[in-house]
């Protein structure tokens, strides 16, 4: 059952050097309960995509200029702000990267969770709010939640803070959770624990997950499908298994190759992707990855490739895929 349908989403942002489309015609879909990983380097547009979905773009600097975002059939881009606000927290939720920054430092964590609980309609009674708050904290495995209600964010460890942020986000049982680099600020062990938590929560509520990250390994563990973003566009997507075993787009391949492997040859060199992401103010005509692509040819440099189907599932925007198919 399709929950989220993003079609040709285009978000334009204005910077000192000029305006450009940070999200340039992005399309993808998410089913109920499914987990989609959105992978890309810094500046690829993945965070902007998330903010566009919930329409929390910086007001003066960014704007959705084209495309649609349908949640259960309803186009979020066309909704008035008041209606959209009602959906936030109750239907769509989002976790941000650094919980130290995303939790308000001057309020207790109890009050911040309770605030989310109180927004539920019909409004819960006061005693119910407290009970719910404790329950939500327990759900994310915060030990002794009742004693911790009066604690402040800085008194918690990074991992626990992120759990609290998760508790706040899912308190009202949203259908979709967007997680924007939720583990980047955590250490490796805590990362694992947090992702396990997300999977557990998903299973309980049949909640869909959009996991945005630059770390492919995490996606493999947690997601059903994956979409790779480069310079504002999705260059490949498909089931996790297929993409990891048989990547089609050269960028995807390069990303996979650059992950250090514990099982590879001992003295194999750490491969890097040559070059740098393009300047979004001066994009190349044609495929945006072509300047760095080891397989680039005249077609790639001349015009942007359409998306071709890949056997095994999904698509890749690459002329070479077109040849193979």
């Amino acid at each position, binding site marked *: 059952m399709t929950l989220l349908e993003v079609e040709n989403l285009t978000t334009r942002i204005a910077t000192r050097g000029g305006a450009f489309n940070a999200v340039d015609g992005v399309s993808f879909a998410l089913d109920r309960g499914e987990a989609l990983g959105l992978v890309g380097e810094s500046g690829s547009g993945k965070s902007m995509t998330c903010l566009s979905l919930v329409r929390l773009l910086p007001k003066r600097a960014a704007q959705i200029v084209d495309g649609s975002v349908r949640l259960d059939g309803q186009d979020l881009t066309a909704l008035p702000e008041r209606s959209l606000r009602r959906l936030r927290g109750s239907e769509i939720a989002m976790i*941000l990267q650094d919980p130290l920054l995303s939790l308000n430092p001057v*309020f207790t964590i109890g009050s911040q969770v309770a605030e989310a609980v109180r*927004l539920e309609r019909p409004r819960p009674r006061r005693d119910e709010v407290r009970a719910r708050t404790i329950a939500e904290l327990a759900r994310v495995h915060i030990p002794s939640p009742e004693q911790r209600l009066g604690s*402040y964010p*800085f008194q918690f460890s990074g991992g626990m803070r992120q759990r609290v942020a998760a508790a706040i986000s899912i308190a009202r049982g949203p259908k979709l959770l967007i997680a924007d680099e939720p583990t980047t600020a955590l250490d490796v062990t805590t990362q694992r624990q947090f992702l396990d938590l997300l999977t557990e929560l998903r299973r309980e509520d049949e909640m869909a997950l959009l996991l945005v990250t630059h770390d492919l390994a995490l996606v493999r563990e947690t997601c059903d499908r994956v979409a790779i973003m480069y310079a504002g566009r999705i260059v490949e997507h498909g089931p996790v298994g297929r993409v990891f075993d048989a990547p089609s787009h050269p960028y995807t391949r390069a990303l996979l190759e650059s992950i250090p492997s514990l099982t590879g040859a001992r003295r194999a060199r750490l491969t890097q992707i040559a070059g740098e992401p393009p300047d979004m103010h001066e994009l190349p005509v044609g495929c945006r990855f072509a300047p760095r692509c080891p397989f680039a040819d005249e077609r790639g440099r001349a015009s942007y490739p359409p998306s071709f189907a890949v056997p095994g599932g999904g698509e890749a925007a690459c002329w070479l895929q077109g040849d193979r198919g």
Partner: protein
Amino acid sequence: MLRYLSIRVALGLVAVLGVTMITFVGERTAGSPVYLMVAPTSTQADIETMRHKLGLDRPLVVQYGIFLRNAAQGDFGTSLKVGVPATQLVRERVGATVELAGAAFLLSLLVGVSLGVVAATFRGTIVDRTASIVGLVGQAMPGFWVGIMLILIFAVKLRWAPVAGRGGISHLVLPAVTLSWFSTAAFLRLTRSAMLDVLESDYVKLARLKGVPEWLVVCKHALRNTLVTVTTYAGLTIATLLGGAVIVETIFAWPGIGFMLTSALYTHDYPVIQAGVVLTSVAFVVCSLVVDLLYGVLDPRIRHGAYR
């Protein structure tokens, strides 16, 4: 936290001491009040007698020592001009200054912060631009001139308020507005700037993501964090107000410490000067400490020693 506060108290005391020392030495070396106190036909011998009577012929260090010893007991000597103990003069006038400075502080805080919040919330609109311009121009206008202009417009031309002196609310309005002028503008700019920072923060974003209505986001989440920054400036404002009070009181003939101080400066009335200086400095130190305490209340991170 306690340690931090005690250091601040100590520093404050040293500062007060320093100020008294500077004033002491400065006064003694500058003009002598003796000439103002004796009849024009006095002989040199008469002048010497007067000097001796006032204890002005002893070495400076000794004079300072005597001053400190007396001051510790609350005795600042007798006014050379009026003949009453300096402390009594101070006591009579403290209330007036507190009334004026208090009114000005409240005024600048309420008006400045509110305007700043409004300007930040409606950033980029005409409201914001107007507020910013008002803030900028307000800070540029010299306070004493504003006072005189207010007198010109409201007291002389429109006759809505009295020209000078202390009395009911109508007497308080013009001086309070004058004194609060600079601080209001400063609060406005500061609040706006701090609020804009806060409004772009991640925790405000999270509050919006939760679905919290916008007005609540501004009034609860954003404001609370902005106040933390504003409080620091509030401490500085006390300093500005205390300094400005000196001038404003003089313009409006407001019978407070500031007026007393400037009059004493003209006549080189040492005891009164010292009393006024010490009092103002101590007041300032105390206010700063109160602000620090407030800071701890508003920001739990300080209370729990999260900052080393």
